[in-house]
Structure formats: structure tokens, C-alpha cells
């Protein structure tokens, strides 16, 4: 028995300094419940993904709506926190443990006042000076070393992200940029420039996930969850190919197998483009192209709006924004809108299959700490 996404909502991503975690998340939670056609009393469990919310983030949100007495589970998995909450909800619904689950993804990065995100200082590499952009910058450097690609190919990812973001009123950045402007923006971690890094911001998104029985009885349109996969990274003390992130290869392969879906059949993908290089590397890891062909795929236009498999129609993390624990849920909301024909100007016509992917967390010895891949199908 599959789980189904019945509704979804998010706030416009941005710097909402005067909003608390509840202030951020309550509006999309209310809207998701309202649009689901269900009521507060139908919610059987709450799964709240976040990275920096502090204690009892989910409870602080839902108590303001009068939701209580049900299990509320707060899940942190770095950038995969929101998607891990989606996964936990889907599992619980599929297993029949709960009939209607509310999923929240939320984070408020403006609380840190700028700069790179705080990493865990217990980690050896963090003590050696590692920051997230540096990890991706080393990937980018190696990519330029091994592949037939130039810094302009990296910049082209940001150009596409911003072009897509211009049509998304929920995006934090809605301003176009040329390759030259991207490359001329200030250097963050060489070779990555400012426009190649996701902006700092706040966000919240919510989903209502229901059982197949409930979905059929309600007779609404929604998304069937074809695959919901979470993996942690595998540690090594030795060599690691930074262009072949095993955690995403592993998670994607399992998702395609579970869903019985071929990457070629995907209409849209929302993937983890926290930095430009990430999108190129993940084209390959997600099987959108063969290893070594990612720059060519981007240049072909196949992943741009109008192409065969549109990647990050929302603008992605680079333009829509990346409030860490929110992102995995916001990706699903974007997929929801496309697969239910509610995406407006950026609608991908007749979109039927969508994949969302989020991974992250810098820990020495791992690609990343956690990776989540979901595959959704239009259902009614």
C-alpha cells in the first residue's frame, strides 16, 4: 500500500528575521490542512524536520494550531532533515501505523547573522578549517581537473537556476544573471563565487500524507509516493572519488528499483544544488546522464524549462533558497504543484513523474551524512 501526498504549502523563502519557527511554519501548515479537505482532528502524527530549531520545534509549531496529544517526532538530518521527516511519515502511513500524517520542514538561518553555517566542532575536518562551500569547491576543482568543462559550465548552473527562479514567487532570488556576472561575483571558496552558492534564508513548508484508503475515499488529486529512500554515508579513512558521491548513487539506485521507474521517464527533478557543482555531479549520480556527460547535458538544454527532464523548475536551492531542514519538504511541495497542475507560469505540461533529492552534512570520512530520494507520480 502506497502513501499519498494530499496537499502541500510553503512560505516564500527569504529573510524573515521577525518570525519565530512557529511564525514561519504555522501559515503553510494551516494552508496544507485546509487544502487537504481534512481537519486538525484528523492528524494522527506529526513529523517535523529541521536542523537548527532547538528543542521541540514541531510541538512549538502545532500547539499554536491546537494540535496536540498525538505523536510529534522532531527529526534532524542536516540538509536531509525535512526529507527524512517525509520519509518517516510515508513509512508510518505505508505500514498502517497512522492514517493521516502532517509533515513540516522548517529552518531559520537568519538567526546566525550571516557567514557559513555552524558545523560541529567535534569533527576533525571542521577543526582543520572545513566549511561546506569548501567541500563543494574541492569537488568543483576536481571536476574541472578531470572533465572537459570550464568555470563557465559551473556558472551556467546558476544562470539556469536564476532564470527558473524568476518565474517562482516563492523563490528568494528572482533576478537573472549572466555567466559573466556569476563568475564576477565575489569569491566564496575558490573556484566557487557568491552566485554559485545558495543564499542564507528562512523557510517553512508542510505536507499532508495519507493512506491509500483515505486517498481513495476523498477522491481528490494528489501524488502517489512511488519511492521514499533514506541512507547515511559510508565512512572511509582513505581515497574517495568526489565526483561519484556513493551516498546519492546508492539512494537513487534503490529509489528507481523500488519505484520501477527509469530516470528517462522523469518529467522533473528537484535536486540538491546547494552549490553549482552539485547539480552537475548529481546529474550523473541520479542517472540523468552517463558519468562524464553532465556538462554536456546542461549545455543541451534538456534540464532547463522546456527540456526533457526539467531540473529545479523552482529555481532550486540556488535561487529558491535553502533553509536547511525546510528544503526537502519544499521540494515535494514544488513537485506537488507540478503534478497537480498548480504551478502556474512555470508549470511543466503534463508532468507525471517527479524525483526529489536532498543530501548533506559535512562529516569527515563521508560524502555526506544523509541522503534522501523520493519519487512521486501524479494520482487521482
Amino acid at each position: 500500500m502506497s502513501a499519498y501526498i494530499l496537499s502541500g504549502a510553503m512560505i516564500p523563502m527569504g529573510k524573515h528575521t521577525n518570525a519565530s519557527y512557529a511564525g514561519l511554519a504555522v501559515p503553510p501548515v494551516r494552508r496544507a490542512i485546509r487544502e487537504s479537505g481534512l481537519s486538525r482532528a484528523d492528524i494522527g502524527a506529526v513529523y517535523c524536520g529541521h536542523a537548527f530549531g532547538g528543542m521541540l520545534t514541531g510541538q512549538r509549531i502545532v500547539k499554536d494550531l491546537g494540535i496536540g496529544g498525538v505523536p510529534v517526532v522532531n527529526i534532524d538530518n542536516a540538509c536531509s532533515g525535512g526529507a527524512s521527516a517525509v520519509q518517516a511519515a510515508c513509512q508510518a502511513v505505508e505500514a498502517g501505523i497512522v492514517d493521516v500524517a502532517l509533515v513540516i520542514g522548517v529552518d531559520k538561518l537568519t538567526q546566525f547573522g550571516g557567514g557559513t553555517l555552524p558545523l560541529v566542532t567535534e569533527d576533525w575536518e571542521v577543526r582543520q578549517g572545513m566549511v561546506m562551500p569548501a567541500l563543494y569547491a574541492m569537488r568543483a576543482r576536481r571536476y574541472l581537473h578531470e572533465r572537459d568543462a570550464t568555470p563557465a559550465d559551473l556558472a551556467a548552473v546558476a544562470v539556469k537556476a536564476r532564470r527558473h527562479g524568476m518565474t517562482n514567487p516563492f523563490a528568494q532570488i528572482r533576478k537573472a544573471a549572466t555567466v559573466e556576472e556569476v563568475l564576477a561575483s565575489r569569491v566564496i571558496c575558490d573556484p566557487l563565487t557568491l552566485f554559485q552558492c545558495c543564499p542564507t534564508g528562512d523557510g517553512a513548508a508542510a505536507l499532508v500524507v495519507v493512506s491509500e484508503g483515505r486517498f481513495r475515499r476523498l477522491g481528490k488529486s494528489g501524488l502517489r509516493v512511488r519511492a521514499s529512500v533514506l541512507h547515511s554515508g559510508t565512512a572511509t579513512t582513505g581515497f574517495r572519488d568526489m565526483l561519484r558521491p556513493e551516498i546519492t548513487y546508492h539512494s537513487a539506485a534503490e529509489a528507481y528499483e523500488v519505484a520501477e521507474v527509469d530516470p528517462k521517464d522523469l518529467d522533473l527533478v528537484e535536486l540538491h544544488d546547494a552549490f553549482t557543482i552539485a547539480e552537475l555531479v548529481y546529474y550523473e549520480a541520479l542517472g540523468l546522464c552517463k558519468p562524464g556527460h553532465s556538462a554536456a547535458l546542461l549545455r543541451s538544454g534538456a534540464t532547463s524549462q522546456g527540456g526533457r527532464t526539467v531540473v529545479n523548475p523552482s529555481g532550486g536551492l540556488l535561487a529558491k533558497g535553502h533553509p536547511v531542514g525546510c528544503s526537502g519538504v519544499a521540494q515535494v511541495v514544488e513537485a506537488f504543484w507540478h503534478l497537480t497542475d498548480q504551478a502556474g507560469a512555470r508549470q511543466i505540461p503534463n508532468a507525471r513523474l517527479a524525483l526529489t533529492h536532498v543530501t548533506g552534512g559535512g562529516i569527515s570520512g563521508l560524502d555526506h551524512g544523509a541522503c534522501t530520494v523520493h519519487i512521486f507520480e501524479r494520482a487521482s
Partner: protein
Amino acid sequence: MDTHDKPAGERPDDTMPNLDLGETERLVARTPLGEHTVMGGECGDCSARMAPSRPVCPNCGGTNIHPAALDSLGTLYSFSVVHVSATREVPYTIGYVDLPKNVRVLAAIDGDPAELRCDQVVRLVPDTGDGWRFAPASVEEKDMR
């Protein structure tokens, strides 16, 4: 074009965040007679009262909440003198004050802690800073209740 004609993916106005931090809330009001009262909110749908006010009613889930001047006299449900804090000077006394029509507020409690008792009548102290302060009420005030 009305915003509701737009598809969900183009309607950010519907889900703007509640800006519930930052500004200091107005916590105390004055009645026409010049008396100070606790300022809170009342739900227009279910009549639930709350202090401080908030964007959504925890009782019915509605957003039809308007500011409401509550009361200045209440009952001290319980209290404690705090002797450890990482963030403020100690000792200080806090307590739960129950106001009429089912509103409970956490407030600073003035007066000699040794003289405080559960269930005694307390009155709002007008010159509040960024919170509420209550103190034991006078004998006449107790009779008024």
C-alpha cells in the same frame, strides 16, 4: 485579478510568515476608568481568551482574533523563587496567575516571597517592562472579587 484565481503555486500571499518576534508586544492596556489591565486576545469564533495574543487560536484553529483588555485581578496558582539562571540576575520570583474567563499567565511576582500563598488574590503592577508583574492585592481588592 483576485489572488484566489491564481493557482496555488503562484500564491505566496496566502502563506506569509507570522512576524511574531521583534516588536515588543503591548502587554498592558488602560480601561476608560484609567485602570491598568492585562492586554491579550479574544477569538471571535470560539470566544477563547489568551495572553499574550497570538495569530491563530489554539482552541479552534481560527485566525479571527482581536485584541482584548483582560483583567488586572487574578489568583496566584503557584510560584517559585528562582535562584539559578544563566541569563538573568537572581533571585527573582515568577508565578502562574489565573485571570477570570480561563486565562493563565506567567508573570513576575512582587512582594516578600515568604508572604506569598497559593490561591491568593494578586493585582497587575502597572509599570511593566517587557512582561507582566503582579503583587498581592489589598484587602479591599480581595473583597471586590
